[in-house]
């Protein structure tokens, strides 16, 4: 059986940025960093139809890069992405409109000189989902679905608040009738009360439209709230994947465990002021990841072997994957 959506052994490297200073230094014979940065490393993920997969990890671990590759916006260095068996990228170009995206900063993703109604109508008209003459009604319909007054269609992006702009971005994506929605930190820059409104809208539309979603966020409680399954990334690799409840309640990788413990919990208990446990050490540079298991310098469970052998992501239970040599002990 082919998965509805499959990311297969996807890697993406970036060439090192060479500055003018580097060029001068190189001319003078100095050693300049030429290693490329491996932003995403051999990632395989599958989504079933109607499923939401949450993707979490700390800054720079490769979430957005993977999201852009999955959306067909960025070609991978190697590996494939396919929707119902058909490749998403053909000759380096996105070959489908069935995948749409919503990004963190709705202001940056909306054209400031275009009326928001035109922004929403543009894609559907170009792809013959609606005729130009009928587009006004089509846009109005989508505006009401995302909770915006249809009379706002004639306004410009700067006339809207952050939460409203995110509604417009959602309307623009959904007006393309996608089967897969990729959201990259869609609520990260919003205030708590507005974040709740957008999350509720997202859950409602997902139900109504039976959407399949890749939902990227650094916020673990947001991901838990919306996801059926969840994948955890560290330094370009997926280190754990499984059902959201399983991953949260019984993590199968020490990094997941430590990450969950380091998030401050909302506590209602006067005395217990200890509700988080920091992870030691810094996140290593992706330019020179540690040998063996990338998490080994910070891992409380690390043993000799961890510093030599890179653990592969493997199925440790049914549809439950971990890239730790000792995953069985952790879940056991």
């Amino acid at each position, binding site marked *: 059986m082919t998965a509805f959506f499959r990311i297969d052994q996807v890697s993406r490297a970036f060439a090192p940025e060479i500055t003018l200073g580097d060029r001068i230094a190189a001319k003078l014979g100095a050693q300049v960093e030429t290693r490329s940065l491996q932003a995403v490393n051999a990632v395989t993920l599958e989504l079933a139809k109607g499923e939401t997969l949450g993707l979490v990890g*700390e*800054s720079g671990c490769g979430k957005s890069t993977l999201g852009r590759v999955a959306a067909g916006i960025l070609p991978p260095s190697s590996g494939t992405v396919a929707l119902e068996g058909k490749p998403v990228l053909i000759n380096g170009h996105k070959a489908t409109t069935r995948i749409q995206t919503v990004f963190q900063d709705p202001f940056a993703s909306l054209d400031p000189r275009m009326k928001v109604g035109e922004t929403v109508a543009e894609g559907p008209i170009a792809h013959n989902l609606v005729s130009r003459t009928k587009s006004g009604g089509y846009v109005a319909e989508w505006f009401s679905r995302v909770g915006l007054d249809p009379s706002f269609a004639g306004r410009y992006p700067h006339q809207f*608040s952050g*939460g409203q702009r995110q509604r417009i971005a959602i309307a623009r994506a959904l007006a393309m009738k996608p089967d897969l929605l990729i959201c990259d930190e869609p609520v990260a820059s919003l*205030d*708590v*009360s*507005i*974040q*709740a*409104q957008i*999350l*509720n809208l997202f*859950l*409602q539309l997902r139900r109504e439209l039976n959407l399949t979603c890749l939902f990227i966020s*650094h916020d*673990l*409680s*947001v991901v*838990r*709230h*919306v*996801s059926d399954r969840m994948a955890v990334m560290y330094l370009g690799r997926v280190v754990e994947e499984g059902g*959201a*409840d399983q991953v949260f309640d019984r993590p199968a990788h020490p990094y997941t465990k*430590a*990450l969950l413990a*380091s*998030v*401050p*919990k*909302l*506590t*209602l*208990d*006067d005395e217990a*002021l*200890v*509700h*988080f*446990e*920091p*992870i*030691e050490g*810094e*996140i290593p540079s992706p330019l020179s990841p540690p040998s063996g298991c990338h998490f080994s310098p910070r891992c409380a469970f690390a043993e000799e072997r961890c510093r030599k052998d890179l653990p592969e992501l493997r199925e440790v239970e049914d549809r439950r994957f971990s890239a730790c040599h000792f995953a069985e002990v952790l879940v056991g």
Partner: protein
Amino acid sequence: MTAVLEVRDLRTEFNTRAGVIRAVDGVSFTLNRGEILGLVGESGSGKSVTGFSLLGLVDQPGRISGGSIRLNGTELVGLPESELRDRRGREIAMIFQDPIATLNPLLTIRKQMMMAVAAHSRMTAKAAEARCIEVLQRVGIPDPVARIKGYPHEFSGGMRQRVAIAIALLHDPAVIVADEPTTALDVSIQAQILHEMRSLAAETGTAMIWISHDLATVSSLAKRLLVMYAGKVVEEGATATVLRDPRHPYTRGLITSLPAIASPGEDLLQIPGTTPSFLSLPPGCPFAPRCDFVESSCEKMPEITLENERMWRCHHPLGLSGAER
């Protein structure tokens, strides 16, 4: 308990072309030695302006238009800039969300710290450097003797924030105002810094005002909590008590908006509408247009109610009178 900072009816306003913005509108609180006080609210509620006001850092077109700030018994409102400058960094210090803004990219950490030491005390260069290294060590910079020679860009975001905290600690201030200091950091780094700040307050007796939009972070750090909305403190009390049993409908909305409180996939109990503009606040309670419990009496500004070491500003507080809503 000794109060190090007493703020009474503080008012700070900005005179803009569009009108007067009362960004801090009658804020009062007391901060005790070694205490961490949490100040929460959504963006634009006046948290940062409150922090700046305490340090006398409000610039034109803004000004402190009323109230009192007593730091170790001395009234700061109305003091000339020279005297404020003498206290800033020595008695009261501030840490910002973006450490880049605090650190000069062109100077080594050593140079910047030595200048900060010299601003308020006269020591030999050797003693000053020893002090710098001591505080760097205190905030968890590994190998401070070597790292102090580096430039800010050679440090990660988390390490830069530690350096900014170290600079704030140089003169053992009585009060540190920390304005969203971990908001830009990764969870694992945030946890390290929260952990260190907590032990700092306990060990050195430095009191802190911890400004954040994140209730969970504040609840893990602060025993007392102030909730701000549209320039006013709408609720104050022991953190756990306020979170468990909020009196103000806005506080309750903030809590129920959190996905961490709900069951996965369940609709969140959201607050309708958006934060109001200071230039078009409704008459009476500023939360009224978004409040589920609004009644005609809310057209008058609710006064402060003080009860059992708690404070709230609402005509129809929650959790009282048995009538559960």
